[in-house]
């Protein structure tokens, strides 16, 4: 980092600082304040910890997030590996196939998946036609739908860091391993995989951070059983109109995300420091 001066940053940074203090910090304070009814009571927390609805949503959130993150790491790795092996020009062209989904609205995707996975959707119609019998696989408005939607959303997020770490591997290492007699599978396991591990970890953590707070996908592609914490926040805010409980759920979600976000940030700092 090139530092011209250490004084005089004030006017440059002030608008961003004021905005983030007022619109990022204060709202978080509001949530913490409301969750304890102004610091006077833990009732909101005790009531949700006794509620089956909350406990089930909590379990669903953790299960779905971990599984979706795992799936998207696998799919993202496949794509990143393919991209890493292309020439720079072809890679730039193929990146469109990852960037278009990345930039596509989650609403468009959710809607499209209802067309693809629905009772009379593309997959069921195709299977019915192919098998010559009525097939109605339950692919959406259940856990399967949530997993499909979340994995689809998260995979591009994993591709970027994994690709970066794959491209950072010195190609001479592959040549050296080959000359020393290693077969492709061994080279993958002893060179490619361990050296791309930082990218995988970064991808997995950011996928986990994203998925824990998912709201749209469970709402549009899940069933009643698949309500996640984010949906519960919405439910308590708009349906029950209990802001204290909604805030308490928000605080717990916030803490849950921090478990993954803090190592993700430390990892990023470490990688930047190493460069």
């Amino acid at each position: 980092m090139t530092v011209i001066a250490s004084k005089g940053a004030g006017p440059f940074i002030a608008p961003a600082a004021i905005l983030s203090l007022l619109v990022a910090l204060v709202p978080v304070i509001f949530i913490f304040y409301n969750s304890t009814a102004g610091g006077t009571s833990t009732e909101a927390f005790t009531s949700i910890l006794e509620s089956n609805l909350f406990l089930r949503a909590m379990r669903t959130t953790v299960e779905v997030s971990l599984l979706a993150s795992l799936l998207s790491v696998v799919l993202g790795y496949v794509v990143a590996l393919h991209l890493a092996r292309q020439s720079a020009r072809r890679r730039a062209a193929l990146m469109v196939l990852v960037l278009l989904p990345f930039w596509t609205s989650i609403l468009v995707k959710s809607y499209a998946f209802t067309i693809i996975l629905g009772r009379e959707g593309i997959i069921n119609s195709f299977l019915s036609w192919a098998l010559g019998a009525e097939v109605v696989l339950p692919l959406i408005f259940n856990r399967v739908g949530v997993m499909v939607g979340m994995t689809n959303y998260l995979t591009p997020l994993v591709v970027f860091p994994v690709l970066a770490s794959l491209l950072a591997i010195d190609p001479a290492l592959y040549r050296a391993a080959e000359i020393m007699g290693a077969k492709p599978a061994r080279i993958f396991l002893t060179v490619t995989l361990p050296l791309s591990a930082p990218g995988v970890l970064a991808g997995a953590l950011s996928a986990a951070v994203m998925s824990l707070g998912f709201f749209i996908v469970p709402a549009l592609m899940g069933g009643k059983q698949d309500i996640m914490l984010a949906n519960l926040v919405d439910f308590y805010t708009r349906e029950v109109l209990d802001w204290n409980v909604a805030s308490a759920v928000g605080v717990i979600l916030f803490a849950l995300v921090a478990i993954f976000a803090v190592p993700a940030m430390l990892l990023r700092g470490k990688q930047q420091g190493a460069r």
Partner: protein
Amino acid sequence: MTVTEPNMIELQGVSKEFGNFLALRPTDLNVRKGEFLTLLGPSGSGKSTLLNMISGAFAASSGRIMLNGTDITNAPPRKRGIGMVFQNYALMPHMTAFENVAYPLKVRGVSKADIREKVTDALKRVGLAGFEHRKPKQLSGGQQQRVGIARCIVYSPSIIMMDEPLGALDKNLREQMQDEIKTLHREIGTTFIYVTHDQEEALNMSDRICLMNNGSIVQLGTPDDLYFRPVNKFAAQFIGESNLFSGKFEADGRLKLSSGDGLALPANAGIAVGQSCQVMLRPERVKAVVAGDAPVSASTQSASGRVANVSFIGSMTSLAVELTDGTLIKLKLTSLPLQSRYKVGDAIELRWDAEDLVVLREEA
């Protein structure tokens, strides 16, 4: 040099094209068993291309490559059983020195006990005993390259190739490691193929040097051959310093220079009268005449002139002398202190032996 030594590597008409670019013209080259052969040349000369085809990094466009009597032209690198040391070390950054050296043995399914013994031995041989648990990042450049060498000798490959292995090191370390590699070659007796663009490195280390330029071999021979008997202008200029003269060969056995008097050529020059040619004279073979020097022998030639430039570069001082006929000639003298050194404008008389003139071939 004994002719009975079998060839370790035989290249038969091997060439390489990248698109329309001919990186290596069809080339024949035999590498003898146990020899230290250096591929020397400027960048883009085709030396690395040649090395990469022997290692299997890419396929030859034509020709055959034989390794120890087996055709390996289309064999993937892992089946060739070759060892390679890289310029930038190519050590696995996530493995310790021990694990790096153990890698080729693990690949070969060697037992754990044997691995421990062989790796320890190889690291000791390159002077890195006690560094087993360091990661490459915790080692200096020289140490990393020693790991690279240990990783190579540990599995006794049939040949060891080194691609500018000392290119990333500073001068003193480079010279020290040159000697280490030479000693290693003497001790293990494996065939070495060494790539460099540094002529001193090549002269110092090699049994034979293969000088390359523009995708083909210019000259193949011992360091002496290349230094004292360069075949053409490129060879003469790439290795060492040289005075070049061109002119026409005349009936009296002299070369009529385009400017000036003319030089007598050695008796064995074998050039037809009337043919134009180029000759080379190494600057250190030119002597400055001092009063009381031995009388001139039959083959000695002399010329006088004025010192045009003096460069004091340590042990040697090089002079540029403008002869009375206008020809410029360089010579190298053992350095003397300033007061007794030649100065610009000093009159000087030069002498050299006609036998030191080397007739150069026209370049292809």
